[in-house]
């Protein structure tokens, strides 16, 4: 080795740039760099020429102009007098809210289906196989469109839920009924779902132009606080168990700490659930033209959420199944040899190991789901692509700026999700020497 790597004595020749492995990689990199720089220069030059020909410039000032279009679903206040920038933020929030709920539902569904597919029950395993294969092999776009079209075109009109005077007399039912014990009404406009309300709210504080709901913050703080205290209790119990061998009884403390503060807070705030319904007079006859109270979830949102959850759930089910199957049989046999029952074997031996295998594909499924929210375009859901990359782009004609900004935002979201999940992954992964 030492002989071979010794440099020849007779100076430097130009051909060594190609033939000598020490210089060749340098040569190649210089050539590639030149080519890349030339390519970039070519693109920039073209862009400058094209912009000049169309009499345009690159200017993000349009973000502070009046948007002039309405967005149906908004998490922070927005009117058509707001700016394009604010419309983009509304769109971003709409993207994030679908992605957030989609990830939760898809995970629940995926774990459920993945575990059931491994079930010893022949029928259940087959049913889950059918679910997974049907959703994995058909385009997501089809599911989004089908769910949207079917829910919005077959659902009854709000007036079909009305009870008329005639019906009260004859005791007949209205043509359409609410589902889930009379709490949820699906109309051709959307899903009327119950709304959680408080009688004595803590009020709203404006941070800049974004309103912050103090009531919600208080409830979240109460829940997070009780979880933290509960963890402290469990830690203490474990410490005592390790020192003395006896584990103190903690279940009633945990229950109390976990639920009492939140329930007390909600009681103090006067929490109740408002079910969407038609206002009625004293005889029970419905008045008005539409449901009062509750929250109206538009079909565009619900269809996107349902389709995304079902579709991604199928992929997560495969990841879960793969993760459980990846744990060698010896692990199960060793656990049985130790005298563990099947349930505890799953919980203590298989799942903790399978989790490590499952997490990397799970990350990429979450990323896919987040990026797939952009298919909301098929059902006119105004997410980031619908506002910034859709209406704003068409109104202002600033394709370059809008597309660049949109790509940048999607890229940032993806990088944030993957780095968060990577942190989680490195926390649970096998600690090797």
């Amino acid at each position, binding site marked *: 080795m030492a002989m071979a790597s010794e440099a020849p004595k007779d100076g430097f020749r130009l051909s060594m740039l190609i033939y000598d492995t020490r210089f060749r990689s340098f040569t190649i990199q210089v050539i590639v760099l030149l080519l890349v720089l030339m390519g970039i220069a070519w693109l920039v030059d073209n*862009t400058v020429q094209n912009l000049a020909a169309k009499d345009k410039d690159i200017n993000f000032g349009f973000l502070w102009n009046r948007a002039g279009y309405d967005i149906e679903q908004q998490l922070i206040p927005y009117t058509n007098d707001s700016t394009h920038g604010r419309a983009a933020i509304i769109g971003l929030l709409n993207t994030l809210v679908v992605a957030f709920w989609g990830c939760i539902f898809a995970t629940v569904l995926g774990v459920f289906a993945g575990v059931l597919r491994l079930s*010893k029950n*022949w029928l259940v395993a087959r049913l889950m196989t059918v679910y997974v294969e049907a959703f994995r092999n058909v385009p997501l776009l089809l599911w989004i469109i089908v769910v949207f079209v079917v829910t919005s075109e077959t659902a009854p009109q709000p007036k079909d839920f009305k009870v008329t005077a005639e019906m009260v007399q004859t005791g007949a039912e209205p043509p359409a009924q609410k589902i889930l014990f009379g709490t949820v009404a699906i109309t051709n406009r959307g899903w009327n779902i119950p709304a959680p309300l408080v009688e004595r709210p803590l009020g709203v504080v404006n941070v800049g132009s974004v309103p912050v709901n103090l009531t919600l913050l208080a409830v979240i703080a109460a829940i997070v606080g009780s979880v933290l205290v509960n963890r402290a209790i469990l830690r203490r119990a474990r410490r005592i168990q390790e020192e003395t061998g006896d584990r103190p009884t903690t279940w009633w403390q945990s229950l109390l700490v976990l639920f009492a503060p939140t329930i007390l807070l909600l009681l103090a705030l006067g929490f109740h659930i408002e079910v969407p319904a038609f206002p009625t007079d004293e005889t029970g006859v419905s008045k008005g033209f539409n449901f009062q109270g509750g929250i109206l979830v538009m079909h565009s949102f619900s269809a996107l959420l349902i389709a995304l959850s079902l579709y991604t759930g199928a992929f997560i089910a495969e990841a879960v199944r793969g993760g459980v199957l990846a744990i060698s049989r010896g692990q199960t046999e060793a656990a049985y040899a130790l005298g563990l029952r099947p349930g505890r074997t799953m919980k203590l031996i298989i799942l903790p190991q399978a989790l490590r295998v499952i997490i990397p594909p799970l990350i990429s499924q979450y990323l896919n789901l987040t990026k797939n929210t952009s298919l909301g375009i098929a059902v006119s859901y105004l997410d980031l692509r619908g506002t910034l990359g859709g209406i704003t782009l068409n109104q202002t004609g600033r394709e370059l700026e809008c*597309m660049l900004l949109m790509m940048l935002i999607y890229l940032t979201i993806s990088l944030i999700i993957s780095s968060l999940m990577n942190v989680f992954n490195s926390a649970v992964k096998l600690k090797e020497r």
Partner: protein
Amino acid sequence: MSDTHAETAFIRTEMLGPQLPPVTERGVVKWLRENLFAGWTNTALTLVALFVVFWLVQLALPWWLNGVWNATSLGECRTIAGPEGGACWAVIKARWHQYIFGFYPQDMYWRPIVAFGLMFVALAPVLYYGLRSGARLVGVVAVLTVVSLAALDHDIGHVVLAAVVMAGLFALAWVAPKRLVYVTLLYPFLAFWLLWGGSIWKPVATLAGFGVMVLVYRLIQPRLGVVMGTATGFITACLYWLFVQGSVTAALAGVPPELVPVNSDQFGGFLLAFVIGVTAISCSLPIGILLALGRRSDMLLIKTLSVGFIEFIRGVPLITMLFTASLLLQYFLPPRTNFDLILRVVILVTLFAAAYIAEVIRGGLAALPRGQYEAADALGLDYWQAQRLIIMPQALKISIPGIVSTFIGLFKDTTLVSFVGLLDPLRGVTQIVRADINWKGIYWEPYIFVGVIFFLICFGMSRYSMYLEQKLKTDHR
């Protein structure tokens, strides 16, 4: 011993035959007990599942069986099906040609059909290299192509031509299966000519560019090595395509054979999905391999570029890439260049898939033990020889499931091209059908039709990848 035998009052002289297991431990009963009714939870699960199956069947089966095949409008369908309702498959019967071909001219359907049949001939050596199964595939495809041509095309000349060509290819596949690779290499140009029409000399002149590349490589490689040979060949070919090809094509413009040109906006349905899907799949694999190698390269600049490209593409949704193809490419290219939208979309979809393929292959490369690289070095192989002979065959084999699922994803994603104005089968064609006054208000049937076709194709691909995994398995576990 024998004495004792004689004295004993009774002893059996031969073994009893084995008794049947108890009724609960054999046959159907055993299977039912083990698989459906083992314990309380299992029984409950079975009952719930049975209920779900029953509910789905009683919901869908009558509707399915009561389907109407002959009608001219949704209203007529509903009248025929009666009050209990039924599927209106008549819409598929009336519009299937749009779902398959889009607005491709009806009298030229033979061209996409022949191109589709030839695709499988071109695929045969890739799927079953040097095997008789390839010839069998070619035979089946030949028969199917000729039959569907005979059913669809009224010009007997086309049928005979296709039959002769297919018979010739079958003979080639039977006698010399490995020679079929040349058909694969020629196929892209042939398919382009068949689908888009125009003068045959345009694809031939483009093909000549590759000829120039190979010629220059052959001249340079023995003197200056692989890298220089490839680079010079590539540059020469690029120069040829940029400056020479135009005049060659122009000179041969009026020379037959020539087909009636078909515009890109007439493409649609599954024809479009296949054009985009197949082109992007076959181009993204080599690019993906190069990107994966670039990402593992020792050269800092190459590595940075590859990582940047891969992470950028994987971070943005495909829709934004498609909008880039339709909105932004006009800014990045020289003024007054305006090339085909399908081509633009194919390029962007290819780049998109290549980034995902690169990540899959990187996983395969990382899974190889270091010893393989060291053994290749010890044998004195250079970088490209080591990659070609030692590393890639193993890495690609490991990555087959990932590669195929990327391909399936890519094929499913071809439906997204409807957002940039192309006529994909799922949204583009169905929108047209649903906008027709006769079929207004129909929703289940067209989506079920498109969904079933996608399912068959994607499921077929995933089954093929399982077969390939099994075939290439070399370990003895």
